[in-house]
């Protein structure tokens, strides 16, 4: 009922009935082409400069970055960070690269593999890409990456491979399409720094409902 009325109103306003093939052509070719619109110059730098831009922008957005030479160094880096923060647990996503690691460097910190729960202190997940233009991480849900790990814990650690850093958002969309045959995962998270709010007197406070701290473990591969 509503649908017919709404579409009827729109078509009346546009001065036509149901669109015929010719009238559909412009919209359909746009949907098929998936062309880029204007991409700012800052997002079109060579790869090495993109990595630097990513780091600068992520730090500006209040993320912490720890640079590592290989993924094998992740458990030790996580252990040091968590010990310093006096955090006793780490919840890990089930991604193959994280499961393959030797976590013995964690020592007395307890590692569990599950979804996020209220009260969790720290989580670690993989990522799909980094986007240099604003220092943004792209993560998505899957059987080995529960979305709750990105939002419930106080501290979110994210493993990012420098090789997956792209300049503009558009490049990440194209890679996502290729990786998933054009079907979007249930959730795609673009994350730029830790949670915050300025709802009280326009004064910025960090750590509203999401993680208070975002630690990017950047693997320079």
């Amino acid at each position: 009922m509503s649908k017919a009325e709404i579409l009827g109103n729109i078509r009346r306003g546009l001065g036509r009935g149901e669109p015929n093939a010719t009238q559909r052509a412009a919209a359909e070719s746009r949907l098929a082409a998936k062309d880029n619109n204007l991409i700012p110059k800052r997002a079109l730098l060579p790869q090495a400069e993109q990595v630097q831009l990513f780091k600068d922008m992520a730090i500006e957005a209040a993320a912490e970055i720890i640079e590592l030479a290989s993924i094998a160094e992740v458990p030790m880096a996580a252990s040091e960070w968590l010990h310093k923060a006096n955090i006793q647990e780490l919840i890990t996503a089930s991604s193959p690269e994280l499961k393959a690691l030797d976590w013995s460097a964690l020592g007395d910190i307890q590692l569990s593999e599950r979804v996020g729960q209220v009260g969790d202190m720290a989580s670690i997940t993989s990522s799909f890409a980094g986007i240099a233009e604003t220092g943004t991480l792209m993560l998505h849900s899957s059987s080995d990456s529960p979305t709750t790990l990105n939002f419930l814990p106080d501290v979110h650690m994210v493993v990012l491979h420098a090789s997956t850093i792209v300049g503009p958002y558009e490049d990440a969309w194209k890679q996502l399409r290729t990786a998933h045959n054009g079907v979007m995962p249930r959730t795609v998270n673009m994350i730029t720094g830790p949670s915050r709010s300025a709802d009280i007197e326009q004064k910025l406070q960090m750590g509203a409902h999401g993680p208070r701290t975002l630690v990017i473990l950047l693997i320079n591969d």
Partner: protein
Amino acid sequence: MQIKSPEFKENARIALQDVGLQKALGNLKAGFPVKRAAAVERMPEFEDLRDQARDLKNHILENLDIYLEQFESKVVENGGHVHWARTSEDACKTILDICQQVGAKTVTKGKSMVSEEVNLNEYLEKNGIEPVETDLGEYILQLREDHPSHIIAPAIHLNLEDVSEAFHKHHHRPKSDDPAVLMQEAREMLRKKFVAADVGITGANFCVAETGSTIIVTNEGNGDLTQTLPKTHIVITSIEKVVPTLEDMTLFQRLLARSATGQEFTVYNTLSTGPRREGDQDGPENFHVVLVDNGRSEMVGTELQDMLRCIRCSACMNHCPVYGAVGGHSYGWVYPGPMGSVLTPQMIGIENAGLLPNASTFCGKCESVCPVRIPLPKLMRHWRENEFEKHLSPKAVRYGISGWGFFAKRPALYRWVSRSSAWFMKKMAGKKGRINKLPLAGGWTDWRDMPAPEGQTFMDQWKQGKR
């Protein structure tokens, strides 16, 4: 929400004398416009992006039915449901039905202006379902039984003391005047609610036709918890939010945060497509999108069509001298500022909202910052004319303008009248050159002096070649 737009003048008068409100509005003026300017400065392509965004929105509106149907088919393909709601009542009823089907007792809500527009909270409460606002600003307002006064900073009219008072009363904890402590309190209180909720309701900034995705843009992460933890995720949004592809959405993403808060990018930009997939360890099992019309489809093909380009960034109100002086509540309904002055008459009727398009100095600041270049002053003028034709404007205005029309059509008489009024006004002003009382212009001279005309009329000078 009760409509208080007809009392705009009285609302504004009270607002101008409200010390607390004036203090709070000071935070706004010192914040958003400065931050926006800095963000624009860092993006040399900003003006070109605005042109492209305007053109793309126009293309979308010319093909709106096609993109909406494409979006619907993609949502369904991914296992979700789309509901079309012609009116507020339709939208509320649809959402209540879904809630009742899953036996919901409480629902958490991310920030959504469309849900304010359809008055969803009140409807759910009346039907025995508890809605819990989770955006910090909206949460504060809900505790105070208050309404947003700004589309992205809903509690901008409040000061720290107000928040502190409300939390003390509802959380039963010692009073604090540290914003960090208050936020921590809200975080703890809402954790329990997030987990207990049966349904999560969010809005959407855009709906992507290519993939059937909706996107929310937030800094807090409350929208993400709202839509990830409960079994059912309902998106309430409106028909003009559809965009063709992910690349097209990105064009607007680049403009939205910069125009709104002056951030390079908002912390969380989250896309939702259908319910959780086989093997996913979390996420909602049901996904519904409610597409609200509420007068929008009738704007297509009219002069008001340009207003459908709006991406709800709030730049127009952040830069508006009228909004900055009287605040959002004076406008008397959900959407304040210049965008509200254009939209509100369409949604609640010009007979209720006729004063809003008049609440403008026509300084043009709103249009100059609007990321999709909506000609807001022109659209306000459209409503003023419409109101005039319907004979809804106050008598003084109508007689004034039609009086002017009478003289304008009689040039000789016009010249004589204006020349003698110039003489008359100069006499009234005396040596000061200022007039502090003018017949028929009390609304103006109560607040400021009218400068007296100097010398000859414009037409006299024109004739003498002073161009």
